[in-house]
Every structure is written in C-alpha cells, then in structure tokens.
C-alpha cells in the first residue's frame, strides 16, 4: 500500500538513480566510443561534454562581420558596404548613362569610416613581386567606364557554393554599377536552377543536359563539354514537329535582366543546323551552321524583353552555353560545377574550351574550389593537380590574371559538436601554394570567415548565414561573403588608383 502513491522525494530519488546510472555509463563508455564495425560506433555523454561550450549563437568574429558588412538576401540591393562609395577622391565615371545611374544610387554605407572598413577587409594575397597583378584588369575597368574599351569579362568558376549565380551576382551587380554593363552573362541552356532573378525560362522538346563534373553519362564518348563543363542537347525535330525551343522572359527591372545581345555557343554534327531567333515577338533571324563549333551572335537595337530561340539540330548537337549581355561594358559569368573540385579543365578536350574562351576573351578569372575534396583528398596531390589547371589557363588565356578563392570552413559532427574538418586547412594551404606558385592571387575565404570552427557561428547567426549542412552559405550569408570579396578587390583597385594619380 505504501507504494501506491508517489511522493516528491521518491520522484527525486528515482531521478537520482537515473542520473547515477547515466554517470556510471558515461564512465564505462570510453570518450571515443565503442566501435561497432565500419564507421558505426556507440558513444555516450562524457564528462568533458559538461565543460564544453555549446554555443547556439554566432561568435564575436561573425557578429563583427555582420556589423561591418551588409545583410541582404538580394544580391542586387543598393544597400551595402562598398569601399568605392567611400572614396573621397574617386573620379566619377564618364558617360551619360552611368552618370544618371550613379545619381539614383543612394546607398546606406557602413561603416561610415573608410579606415575602419579597410581594417575589416580580409585582403587578397599575391605572389611576391606581383602585388600589381590585377592592375592591367583595373585599367580595363577604367577604360570601360570611360568608353575607351567596349568589353571586358570576368569568368567566375566554382563548385556548388556559387550555384545559381550566388556570390557572382553581387560582384557582377556592384562592378556593373560602377563601370557599366548589364546582363547575367553565360548560362547553360538547361540550367540546374530553372529559376533566376534575371529571367523566367521555359522550353519545349526533349532536352538533355550532360555534365563533365559530378556524375558523367557513360554513353558520351567524347570530352568536348565547352568551358562550362556541360552541354545541352535536343534531338529533332522530326518533319511534323515544331522546332524545340528555349523561351526567356527577362526581368528588365533588374540590371541582370537588361539584355541586348545574345550569344549561343554550340557544336553541330551536320552542315544543315539552324537556330531561329524571335525577339520581343518578332522573328529576326535564322542562322545556319556547318559541322563543328559555331557561334550565334545577335545584337538587338533595343532592350530584349522576350526571346524565343528555336533549334534545328538534326542529330542533337551540343549547346555549350548561351550568354545574355549588354551591347558593351562588363560581363561577369557564373560557371558553377556541382560537386566539382576544379580539376576538370585539363581533363576535358581543349578545342571547345579554347574556342569559347577566344570568343569570350576574359580579362580576369576567378576560381572558387576546394570544399568538395576536403573530406577525402590528399592535399599534396590536390596542389599538384591544381597547378596543372593554372598552367591550362595560362596557356589558353595568356596574361589574364587569376584569383583563386579558397574553401569555406565546413564542419563535421563529433559527439554532437560541430568541428572543422581536420583536412580543411591542409587543402586550403595546398590551394594557396598552388595559386601563389603559379602567379595567381589567393583569397582565403576560410580565414575571412573567422577560421577554425567559424561555420557553426554562421549557421547559428540571426539571420542564418549558412545552411544546417554546415557547408553551404544561405542567400544572406553568400552575399555577405561576396561583399567581403568585392571590397577586398576594390581595396586593390583603390591602391591602383592612388598610384595612377601619383604618377
């Protein structure tokens, strides 16, 4: 009868017994766990868990970054931290179009003080004696702004971290604002992301997308994938069918959606391939192609609001990419390779890559890789292999400066706590060495974030700056990173300007 009712003290004793057993178990089970075969293991609370910080909030470094740089989900926002706008001595670019736009540009700049921003910027590292690596490119930017050069281009290659124009979009928007140009640049015909801020796309026909990166289709025997490492193919049409098409509606309210030139890079298997262009509802041109690599280049006298590209590629053909550009100015291309490690350029066939690069004529190349090899690759091997990629670019684009952006911090979970991958710093060093030894610049994204174990702070920040996979940035997070990189680049630009003035 005594035990038919519980009393608080008995409940207390019950809990004490449970806690005691848990403590005993914690003592019995080694901190590293009991292996269960393979990767599986049984682990339990250890006494060091009790003293381990289990922060749920962003740490001070990240809080400071959030203070110094802007937080926006929209890469084409006029609000933000911009070193160029803090420049007292900066000359306004000439040209009527740009002047009108600069007037409209009323940013909220923070921090208000140039010096404090300069301190917050994590600088690009250059090889010794090559501090002026980017100066030829800055000259081009100035020439664009002053109308002395028509075009220049930045190719931004990277892995899933930059998918869907992430990172590139902010850099593109800011640079185009300052130096001129519009349009989203190179896109895959059938992109992985079918939603874009710049346009809406739909299509007809049985389009297929092939990539050299990630999982490769073993039925494709050749290695001609173009510089984007991917192509789209559409068979047909049969006689009765309409030509398969790609249809774009541009969002002209956005700079990235303001397009007046379309370039299609393709490869035909036959001599009778054709591409029909219908712009803003009117059929403008039908272009004919011979067997081999070809380029359709169409300039429209006014803004393109809508484009319908119809393809007559009897044996499918290969569309390497379509570029949506302005008539002149700066283009910045986002070339994302999901799962890529940046080692495919030397593995793919040279011809189609070189042909595209010759037409695109980049003035600067950004490479952003490393994350995908962190979990498993030997750093020494990666360094050697990456140097070969630099050699490749030096061969196909001589004298074009390259900046390599290293991997972000990424975490794995050990006993419930997120820690930086043990191999990460080695991979970062490998990339840094490869870049500096090859005469390229290096921007250490890992250190810029705050270094070791900074990713959890990005995940726990409010708003979240990274996704709960502890690898990828959120939209806001990647814009923050892009703004940091943009400002690092503009710091070099300001020094270039200062030297130019003093000359």
């Amino acid at each position, binding site marked *: 009868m005594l035990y038919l009712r519980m009393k608080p003290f008995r*409940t207390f004793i019950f809990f004490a017994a449970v806690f005691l057993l848990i403590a005993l178990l914690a003592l019995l089970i080694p901190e590293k766990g009991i292996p269960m075969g393979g990767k599986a293991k049984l682990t339990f609370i250890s006494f060091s868990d009790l003293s381990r910080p289990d922060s749920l909030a962003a740490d001070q470094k990240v809080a400071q970054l959030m203070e110094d740089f802007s937080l926006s989900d929209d890469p084409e926002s006029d609000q933000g931290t911009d070193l160029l706008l803090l420049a007292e001595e900066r000359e306004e670019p000439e040209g009527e179009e740009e002047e009108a736009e600069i007037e409209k540009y009323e940013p909220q700049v923070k921090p208000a003080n140039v010096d404090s921003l300069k301190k917050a910027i994590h600088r690009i590292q250059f090889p010794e004696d090559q501090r002026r690596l980017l100066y030829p490119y800055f000259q081009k930017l100035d020439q664009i702004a002053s109308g002395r050069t028509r075009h220049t281009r930045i190719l931004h290659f990277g892995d899933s971290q930059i998918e869907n124009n992430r990172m590139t979009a902010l850099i593109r928007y800011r640079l185009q604002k300052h130096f001129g140009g519009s349009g989203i640049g190179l896109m895959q015909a059938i992109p992985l992301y079918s939603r874009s801020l710049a346009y809406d796309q739909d299509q007809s026909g049985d389009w297929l997308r092939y990539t050299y990166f990630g999982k490769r289709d073993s039925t494709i025997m050749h290695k001609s994938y173009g510089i984007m490492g991917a192509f789209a193919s559409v068979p047909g049409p049969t006689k009765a069918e309409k030509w398969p098409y790609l249809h774009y509606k541009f969002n002209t309210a956005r700079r990235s959606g303001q397009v007046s030139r379309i370039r299609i890079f393709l490869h035909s298997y036959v001599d009778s391939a054709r591409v029909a262009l219908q712009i803003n509802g009117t059929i403008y041109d039908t272009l004919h192609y011979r067997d081999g690599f070809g380029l359709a280049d169409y300039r429209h006298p006014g803004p393109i609001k809508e484009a319908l590209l119809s393809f007559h590629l009897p044996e499918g053909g290969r569309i390497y990419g379509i570029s949506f550009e302005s008539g002149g100015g700066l283009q910045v291309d986002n070339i994302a390779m999901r799962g890529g490690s940046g080692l495919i350029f030397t593995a793919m066939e040279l011809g189609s890559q070189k042909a595209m690069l010759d037409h695109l004529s980049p003035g600067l190349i950004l490479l952003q890789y490393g994350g995908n090899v962190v979990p498993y690759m030997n750093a020494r091997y990666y360094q050697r292999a990456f140097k070969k990629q630099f050699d490749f670019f030096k061969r196909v684009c001589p004298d074009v400066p390259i900046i390599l952006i290293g991997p972000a911090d990424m975490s794995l*979970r050990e006993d419930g706590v997120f820690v930086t991958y043990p191999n990460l710093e080695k991979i970062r060093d490998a990339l840094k060495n490869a870049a500096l030894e090859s005469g390229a610049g290096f921007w250490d994204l890992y250190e810029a974030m705050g270094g070791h174990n900074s990713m959890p702070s990005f995940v726990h920040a409010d708003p979240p700056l990274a996704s709960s996979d502890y690898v990828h940035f959120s939209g806001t997070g990647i814009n923050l990173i892009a703004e940091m990189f943009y400002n690092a680049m503009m710091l070099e630009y300001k020094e270039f300007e200062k030297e130019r003035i003093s000359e």
Partner: protein
Amino acid sequence: MSALWDIFLYNPEKPLIFTRMFFWGFYFVVLLIYSLIYKQRAARNVFLFAASLFFYWKTSGLFFLILVFSTVSDFYLGNLIHHSQKKGWKKFGVIMSVVVNLFLLSYFKYAYLFVDTVNSLFQLDLEVINHLALWSNRATGTHFEVSAILLPVGISFYTFQTISYTVDIYRGKVNPVKHILDFGFYVSFFPQLVAGPIVRASEFIPQLYKRYSLSMQEFGFALFLILKGLFKKMFIGDYIALNFVDRVFANPVGYSGFENLSALFGYSLQVYVDFSGYTDIAIGVALLLGFRLPKNFNSPYKATSVGNFWKRWHISLSTWLKDYLYIPLGGNRKGRIMTDVNLMITMLLGGLWHGASWQFVIWGGLNGLGLVVYKLWRKVSPYEKSKHPWVRFWKIFNTFLFITFTRIWFRSESMEKANQLIHQVLNDFNIRIIPEVLWNYRLVFAVMTLGYFTHWVSETWKSRLLNAFIDSPLWAKILISVVTVFVIYQAWSSDLQPFIYFQF
C-alpha cells in the same frame, strides 16, 4: 566560483529548455526542495513561482519584467472586474486587460510585420524603434539596443493565458485568485511557460488550493510522456531537421522536386514531433510536481477532416480561439454566411498568432478555407456517414495531404522560398533520381518512416505499451529511462549526413 555564478546569470546562448542537460539539473534541484516543502501549500506555490521566474530569467533575461508586469496588471484587473458592482467597471476592466495584453503581444511580435507592410504599401522607409528601450535608456541610463525589438519567449502563450483569466472572471466562470503570488504561479508555471499548453484559469487555479497527490499510475504515465517527448523531439525531429529538412527549405531551388516534396513531408512530421514532444515533456514534468495540464495533441494526422484536425492539433489553442474569439464574434449563431466569415477570421488571426509574417496568414487562411469547404462537401458527399475502413483511410489520407500542403507556407522563410518549393515540385520532379536520393538519405527516410509508423499505429498497441510501462517495477523504469537517454544520445551525436550532389 564563476561557474557557480554562471548558473544564476542570464546567458542567451544557454536557455533552459527541456532538451538540454542543464534543465534536468535544474529540475532535479527543484524536486529536492519541493519534496521538503510540498505539504505547505503557500510555501509550495511561492517556491514554484520563484523557480518559474528563475527559469524565465534564464531563458529570456530581463524580459521577465514583462511577465511580471502582465501578472500584476491582470491580477488587479481581475479583482476590479470581480468586485465592481457596476457593469461599466467590469467591462472597463476586461477591455483594459485585453488591450494591455494584445498591445504587449503586438509591440513585441508584430512591430516588424506592421512596419514592413506599411513600407511596402506606401513606398516608405520607416524603421522599427524600440521605444521601451529608448525610454529605459533615457530614464535610467541603461544601454539597451533601440533599433531592434526582440520577441520575448513564451509571450504568445502567457498573454493568452492572462486574457483567459480576466475574461473568465468577467463571464463569472472563475473567481479571482486570492493572492498575487498564487496568480504569478499560474501565469508563469515553468513547464508550460515557453510553449504551452495554454492553461485555462478555471482548470488550473483550483489545483493551487489542492493538496499534492500523485498515484503510481500517474507517475508512470508522467515518466512515459517525458521519455516519449524526448524521443520524439530529439531522436526523430532534430535528426530529420538537421540532416535533411532544414537544408532543403533553406535553398529549395538547389534540390529536385522529389527532395522538396520529401522535405515537406519530413517537415509535417517534424513540426508534430517537435511541438507535441515538447508539450508531452511539459505535461509529464508538471504532473510529477502534482499539477495536471490539459492534453494538447491527439494523433492529429489521424484526423478525418480539417475540422477534426483542429480538434486534435494544439487543442489548448484551438479551444482558446473558439472560446475567446470565434464565439464572441458570433460563432455559428448568426447564419451560415456569418459562420463561415467568423471561421475565416478566427483561422486568419490564429495563423498570425503562430508568427509575424504573411505566410502564417496564408497558412491560417488555407486552414479556414479547408474548414469552410469541408462543411459544404459534407452535405453532398455520399460517403460522409460511411464507416468503411477504406472511406476512413481516404479521408485521413486527404486531410493529411491538405495539412501537409499548407505547411509549405508555415515553414518557408519567405514567399519567394515557398514559390521556389512549389516550382521545383511542379517543374523539376526528376523521377529518375528517386532511388539515388532514397538510398543516400536512407537513414533520414528510415527515421521518417519510424516517426509516421509510431503515429499511425493503432491506439490499442500504444495503450498496451503505455500500460506495460506503467505496470513495470521501478527498477525497470529506471533502466528503461537510461536506455532511452542512451538511444537518444546516439541520434544526437551521430555524424552529420554529408551533403549529396544529385544531378537533376
């Protein structure tokens, strides 16, 4: 020494929540002191009030002053309503109480939504200023941030609770609490302070004056609820959220339609196990102290209609909304059309209660539409009265699909993200990668299957398990508790599911 001092300091990074070890240490100490004083009713209530304020202080810092303010104002307004002879004063008292509570809730919860909406409607650039902080800084020299208003934890719950108190006094359903400390205890009782259930004064206040009693069955039941809640929240909910659901919702366009749809069904499970798990623990923790909180969930995904769902999901909120919003609006007494209008208003505002964004209003609106449409359908459906198992299955299936569909707006951080999810499901479904996704995320899908299985399994099986646990000897309960903690730890400490690239 400083570690000891830390225990008493507010640290926003270490809130006192049920899934943290520190909470159980706190509860252990509470149990010890409680066992010494529980027989003296006044001391017991004062102690639990103090413990609850400490709990809230650890969770919310100085916001506990708002809780104290709400307690004091509603206590005296309650007295005013009860003791006034004139009807006008009674009315004034209850209106004041509703206004003050709703003002607090609006100020802290809806300021941003309001300002953003005004800005976008009128192309303005207004900014939110925390006038309370500004006032405090000027008056007392504090250094609170004035450009941000943070949401105090649990404010949505305790303001509704105090409103129910004054309204019930006004309606003559309950007498005022005699002592303000007792009232404070009712408002702030720590197990239900942060996430409910929303306890009615009429249900809880009589318990303040009762002696402690807890049968062995109740003890077993409380313990079972705590273990079940921890398992649901930490083993199932946290695991699928961290390893799959959160990633997809963070960037829907990065995932195929199939992954998006799986994440949506994953979320439907996660939101249930998270929320019901938390209230299971709350009910268990309160019961061990001798206080009975109302049941808040009743296998909601077994609902056969949207109406039935709301009788099973967050029951304390839906009955609150019924009694203090739907019925005062006129309920079903003013004709068919007005009944539908009242339902829609209730559901739209109920949606907004869940969070300050238009997605929640859409979610509430969809649920309202679900209720209204079902009312019409019921009249024409030939199967409405059928008891056939397939009919029942079909109704449950459709209700579950509909509720899961509405979760798109409940979970998405923005309208853009919600649109992205729908776009991916409709345009990038990618049937061919399904086997690859299932295989690579096999652990996530296994945990999801386990979650849904335990939800849909027959009640007979569930009560058999519960009774077996209740009837087990104490030593077995101790062992089962330890084993459960051990199992939960395995999920909590498991390796992160690596990111997988699917080409679609």
